Structures are given as structure tokens and as C-alpha cells.
């Protein structure tokens, strides 16, 4: 198939960006979206032009590096799919496709389609862990966890940290990302000692990074490639309130 691409180009964080038009022919429906961009980049290099910079790595939907807002949707039109797992069979010959970076105040553009998502790392550094040193802890089976809770914790832990939730949110909120981590640990017995401290620190860092607040649009859940549920946001809100009113035991 033949496609017309409109791609965001931006030299560096300070320069002004613009949409650039490109034509790609010979796109096969078995290609992934990123392989289609590879084809474009090979074409650009051969023309002596600079390749379009975009983040990607594992190309199997798990590392969370790939991003892109495709026709206005973070990770494109298909539900529960990262950009690298989006295949061209979802598009038609002759389509025009608009490709932009993830847009959010807390994710500044570094170049072209590459954004800086290190705010997520700093939120994790503020409290996204259980404080155990490497040592010889008790036997793993000494602490039973109900299957239901373990499964629910795993639902939350499936987050790949891509940031689509932020890009989709009209407020640029990172509630789903933070809620997933907070919930995973709050559901497990290992997470209890730091339960209150964790949610307070992570939320504080989240606000410091310039993420917006949640006003229940649920756009985050709609675009999440791992289908993390907004119920975890409700859980985080309860955790946060609980941490505020109650004292740390």
C-alpha cells in the first residue's frame, strides 16, 4: 500500500516543531508500524536527509520504549496495543497518517518523536519500591498471599511505563501509572510496612513533576496497552486519603 505521512519534526527541545509530509510506497500489511517508519528512514538516508528520531527497543510490546501519537491516539487506533505491535493491516492503501510525539507538559520533546519520560523514574525513586536489601530473607513460601490478591497485584504490575496514559489525559495526569505501582504493593503483604509513606511520597513527586490531576475522563484506561484498570486510581485515592488521616503505625 501507499501512505502519506505527516510527521512531527523538532530539532531539539528549544526549537519550534512542525509537521513534515512524506510519501511511503511499498508498505506491506505484515509490517509493524515501526518497520514502516524504518522503511521511511532508509528512504530519507538515501536522499541524504536526516532520519526521523523515535524511541523503540524490544519491538514486542513489553519494554515500554515506543510511544508515538498516531492520528491523535497514543499508540494508535488499536486497543491494548503498543505502537511496535500495531501492524499495517490496520491501515488502508492511500491513508494519511499523522504521527506526533506523546504530548504532555511533563514529557518534553527531546527531538522529533522522542520525549523525555524520566519523570516516571523519579516517581519510582521517590517510593516505588519495598525497602529490602539484598540478603537472605525468609523462605518465599513463609508468607502466603491469596491467589486473588496476587492476581490483582499482577494486573497492576503489568504496567510497562510507556506514558500513554499521560499523553491521552486532557490534564496530562499520570494517575494510572502511579496508581498501578501503589496498588501492586498495597495489595501484597510485603508492601504493608511502607504503605502510607509510599503513596504520599509518590504522589508528592508526581505533583512536583508537573503532572495534572485526575478528573475521571478515563482516557488513560482506553489507551493503556496493558489495559490497566482505572479502578486502581480509585484504590490509590483511598490509599492516599487513608495515609493522610491515619498515622503511620
Amino acid at each position, binding site marked *: 500500500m501507499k501512505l502519506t505521512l505527516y510527521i512531527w519534526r523538532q530539532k531539539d527541545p528549544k526549537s519550534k516543531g512542525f509537521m513534515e509530509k512524506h510519501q511511503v510506497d511499498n508498505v506491506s500489511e505484515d509490517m509493524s508500524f515501526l518497520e514502516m517508519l524504518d522503511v521511511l528512514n532508509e528512504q530519507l538516508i538515501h536522499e541524504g536527509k536526516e532520519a526521523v528520531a523515535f524511541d523503540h527497543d524490544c519491538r514486542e510490546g513489553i519494554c515500554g520504549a515506543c510511544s508515538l501519537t498516531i492520528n491523535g491516539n497514543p499508540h494508535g487506533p488499536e486497543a491494548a496495543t503498543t505502537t511496535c505491535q500495531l501492524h499495517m493491516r490496520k491501515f488502508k492503501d492511500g491513508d494519511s497518517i499523522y504521527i506526533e510525539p506523546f504530548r504532555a507538559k511533563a514529557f518534553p520533546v527531546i*527531538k522529533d518523536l522522542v520525549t523525555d519520560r524520566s519523570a516516571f523514574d523519579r516517581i519510582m525513586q521517590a517510593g516505588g519500591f519495598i525497602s529490602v536489601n539484598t540478603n537472605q530473607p525468609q523462605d518465599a513460601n513463609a508468607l502466603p498471599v491469596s491467589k486473588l490478591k496476587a492476581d490483582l497485584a499482577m494486573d497492576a504490575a503489568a504496567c510497562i511505563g510507556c506514558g500513554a496514559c499521560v499523553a491521552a489525559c486532557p490534564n496530562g495526569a499520570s494517575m494510572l501509572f502511579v496508581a498501578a505501582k501503589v496498588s501492586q504493593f498495597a495489595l501484597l503483604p510485603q508492601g504493608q510496612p511502607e504503605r502510607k509513606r509510599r503513596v504520599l511520597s509518590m504522589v508528592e513527586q508526581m505533583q512536583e513533576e508537573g503532572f495534572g490531576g485526575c478528573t475521571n475522563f478515563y482516557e488513560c484506561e482506553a489507551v493503556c496497552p496493558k489495559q490497566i484498570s482505572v479502578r486502581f486510581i480509585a484504590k490509590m485515592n483511598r490509599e492516599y486519603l487513608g495515609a493522610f488521616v491515619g498515622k503511620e503505625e
Partner: protein
Amino acid sequence: MLDSKIPCGPIKEKWDKHRFELKLVNAANKRKYKVLIVGTGLAGASAAASLAELGYEVEAFTYNDSPRRAHSIAAQGGINAAKNYTNDGDSIWRLFYDTVKGGDFRAREANVYRLAQVSNSIIDQCVAQGVPFAREYGGLLANRSFGGAQVSRTFYARGQTGQQLLLGAYSALSRAVGKNQVKMHTRKEMLDVVLIDGKARGIVTRDLVSGKIESHWGDAVILATGGYGNVFFLSTNAQACNVTATYRAYKKGAFFANPCFTQIHPTCIPVSGEHQSKLTLMSESLRNDGRIWVPKNKGDNRPPNEIPEEERDYYLERKYPSFGNLSPRDISSRSAKEVCDDGRGVSATGYGVYLDFADAINRLGQDVIEERYGNLFEMYERISGDDPYTTPMKIYPASHYTMGGLWVDYNLMSTIPGLHVLGEANFSDHGANRLGASALMQGLADGYFVIPYTIGDYFATNKFEKIDTEHIEFKKVEKAETEKINRILSIKGKKTPSQFHRELGKVMWDYCGMGRNEAGLKKALELVPKIREEFWQNLTVTGSAEDLNIVLEKALRVADFLEFAEILLWDALERRESCGAHFREEYQYPDGEAKRDDEHFTHVAAWEFTGVGNKPNRHIEPLEFENVKLAVRSYK
């Protein structure tokens, strides 16, 4: 001359004895030592967190935008441990035995035994960190069996075990970064290691955003930079995975061990066309319930559901009745190649076999299969457009993991003093073939439970001159790297880095892939230098060196692959036997099984750099098997 430093005494006591004999660094003195850790996957992140907790000054480096992106994250199936929770006869000894046997008797017994010993601590540690492993209704941990094992010793978190373990290590690392115990450098790629007075004292990196070439000094350097599977261009590795860090260390004097031991994973989605940038692995846990088959007759083009039972060849069950579909990776991969070479392959290219769940769905119900493999089935459907609940999956082997790597001693130190190598980047534990669910185990064993002990001994027994990055050796490397980059940008030829990479990959896959022979390897040794020569004359890289330039990054990585490929070929040529993943067509039994030559090749081959394009020197570390009897590996 290669001193593996394996402690003497009975194998069960070696590690305990060694730990006692290792010199310690006083708690208050640890902060005076700085460790540079390159790579933040399972091995690197776990080492960074553990060393920081001990009090060392740690700086960690990744070329990704966050440590959480490392390719350890993609491991699906699970992690082995000798817990024997399932009461099916497992033990440390059995995990040790299985790993030595699975590695086709080309791994060091002492290292493997230690790996099996610490495997249990890894599970304890990960559970304490909040890794949400799968559980039974009683609340205890669930286990499953995995390729190459007859016991259920694999712990898992749905199909995302690697992700959950990496996020566990990443959260421990994040905690240390938050407490300013680790300085984290993201989007920085190591270009070279810096030696001062013969010791590894630092690295030179390129900032992938600003393009700046920067020096970093330390008292020891740890490489946890993964494998070199992308030398085949198409592999299950992430796009950025490369050999540069380990190859550059090799050029500085570290020996490269057993590079020809490259694992081909049996269950990947087949190639669909020229545009393909990577191959996607479907967890081999699928082989627990899926049955592998091809049509009995050549050229049978009927859809799979129309081929009656008696016209199907379940070739693994037929040839290896006791292991069947769970036969080790090398055997499964080679068998798939055999039936496809025989003209019975499926998929458009003729290189594919069926992995069929119809029986398992009938026996267990679709909900059980969905619970076990739901996300894998979804992923398959997304990529191939087929629904595996109703039509069999198509799979084919692909380059996946590299058992070879930098040579290390029992302390995980390379032949360069102070340069330690962890995880897939070293060679030590898997011999000629790695068993499923053992890579995660080894990465975390090295990072959490080995290097924190052994690195202290290196510090306690060596003197370190005070240095900084103004040292002439740093300046020399910075200058050389800058010149190399300028040279790459000035070629202005006609072919892109990807084109060269694809060309190299094709040569390597055709002549040094699943089957290898002398004539083919010699041919490849002629072809690779030609591609390399053309690279330096006809490469084109657009953009500049002073900002984020994805084409330049790629070119630098491909340049090193083009040199490295030759050591792999030499190793494959000189190892005149078939063992594990290394199948030399000249050395096989009449029934097609691999024929090992224990008399001449029960050793590690460690290669020493002698100049680009020259044949490297081959050193030998003899392997002694005192506890496991050398035997023909049979899975029949």
C-alpha cells in the same frame, strides 16, 4: 595460563569455603571504592542495587531512557530454582546436574553448582521485593515445568516473568538512586573501556542526546551488557542490543570465550518478509501444552485443520518419546530445520512448523489455556493475524541467546584485572546450550549473590592509585572515538548501516546458524571482511555527531559487529565437534544426533585479540567433570 580460580574441595562446599576465604572490605571503607556498572538489565540493576546497599559508590549506565527498558524485560516463561516445592524430586543437585547436562558438558561444574545453590535465595529475594509470582489457591507459589527439565521448578508471573523480575531489580535500583547511593546515567552508551596500569579504571561513553564523548573513572568496571545475538541481524533481541561493550573490552585484552555457542530458540514467529526488523519469541512454556507437528507428506498445502491425525508427523514426540515437545532448545530447533529442509515446512516461506493447542483445549478447556497463555495468544494474533485458539500457531527457530561471552574466572572477573562481567555478557554457566528459565536465574545470581562478595576481594587485595578523567589514557580513548565518529560521518557512501547489518546477518545465519560446516565457515570468513571493507568505504550516515542521531548510533554498533563476527566464525571452525547449540554437520551420528568429541574438546576456547582481520589466538581452559559423568546427552 587461564586461571579459573575454582576453589578446591568438594563441590558442595566450594562456594561457602570461597566466601570465607575472600578478603573483606571494612564497612566504613567501602564508600572509598567506586564501581562503574554498564548495563542495567537483571544482572546490572541487581548488582548496582546490591553494591550500593553495601556502601560502595556506584555509577550505572544504560543507553535506554530508563533502566526499566533493558531486554531482560522480554523474558516470558520463568525462572528456575531448586526449591522442590512441588515435591517431585528436585534438589540443588538435580538443577546442577540438569544444567551441566543441558549445556552438553561444556560448562564449569563449580560455577553451575553455585548457580543452583543461590537459585533458592533469588526467589526469596524477589518475593520480598513484591514480585507478584503466580500462586496457588492456598497462597503458596505456583510452579510449572519448562523445556529440558522433568521436574516443575519454574516460577513465573503470567507470561511476563522477565518484566516482573526486572521491575523488582529496577525498583531496588530506583530506591538506591533516590537515596543518592547510585548515580544513574541514562541515554549514555559505552564506547570503550579505559585501562590504566593494566587495570580497568574507567569507561568512555557517548551521550546519545548531546553527542558528547565523556569519560568516567572508577576502581572497577562491571559489564552487564547482554549478548550478541543481533550479529544475525534477525533475532529475538531488542533493536539496540549490541556487542560493542564486550567487544571493545576484548580488543583491550579481555578474552572472548566460546563465541560460537549461540542459541537458536525453537518457538518464534516465522519471518514474513524483507522488511522484518526482529523476530518475536513465543514463550517456550507454550510447549507444555502445545504439540508440534508438520504434515507427513511434502507439499501438503491443506489448511492445518483439514489434515487428518494420521497424516501429521508429531516429530518431537516420535523421536524423543520421554521429553517429547519439551526437548531442549537445540534439539527442538534442529528438528524443525530438518523437517523444513525436507520440504514439509508450513507458512508462506516454507520455514515454519505448527504448534497446536487443540488437544490441550479439549482436555483442559479453553479457560485454562487462556489463563496460562492468554497474553501470548493475543500477541500472536496481533502479529500474525491468526487466532491460535482455533488454528495452530506457526513457529520457527530464531537466534535468541548467546551462551558465549567474555571469559571470567570464578569471581566473575575477566582477564583484565578489575573488569567484571555478569549475566549473558559472560560465558560461564550454560555451556553449549542454555536451558529454559535459566537466563533470569543467572543474571540475578551474578548480580545479587555473587559479585557483592567477589568484588570486595578485588578491592581488598589491590592498591589503587588516585586518578581522574584528565588522565592521558582517557584523553587518548576520547580522541580515538571522536575520530572514529568523524570518519563514519565523512564516508558519505551509498549504503545505510541497516543494509550492512542485514548483509552481515544473512552471511552469519546461512553459514553459522543452526547448522555449520567447514566449507561454509571458511566462505563466511572470506565474506565478512569484504562487507567490513565496503562498510568503511560506502557507508552513509546523515545528521550530525552533536545531537541525537539514531543512524550514527546504529553505525557504531554495526562497525563492531562486523569485526566481532570473525571471532564467532573462527570459534565455530576450530571447534571440530557438535555440542549443544553448536552443530557441525561433519560431526553427527547416523541418526542425525550431535556427536561430541570429549577427547579433544572438553574445554573452553578463549580468544585473544591480535588485530582486526587477524586470526585471534585460541587459549584453552580444560573442563574437569568430577561430579557429573560425561555421557551422551540423550533425551529419547
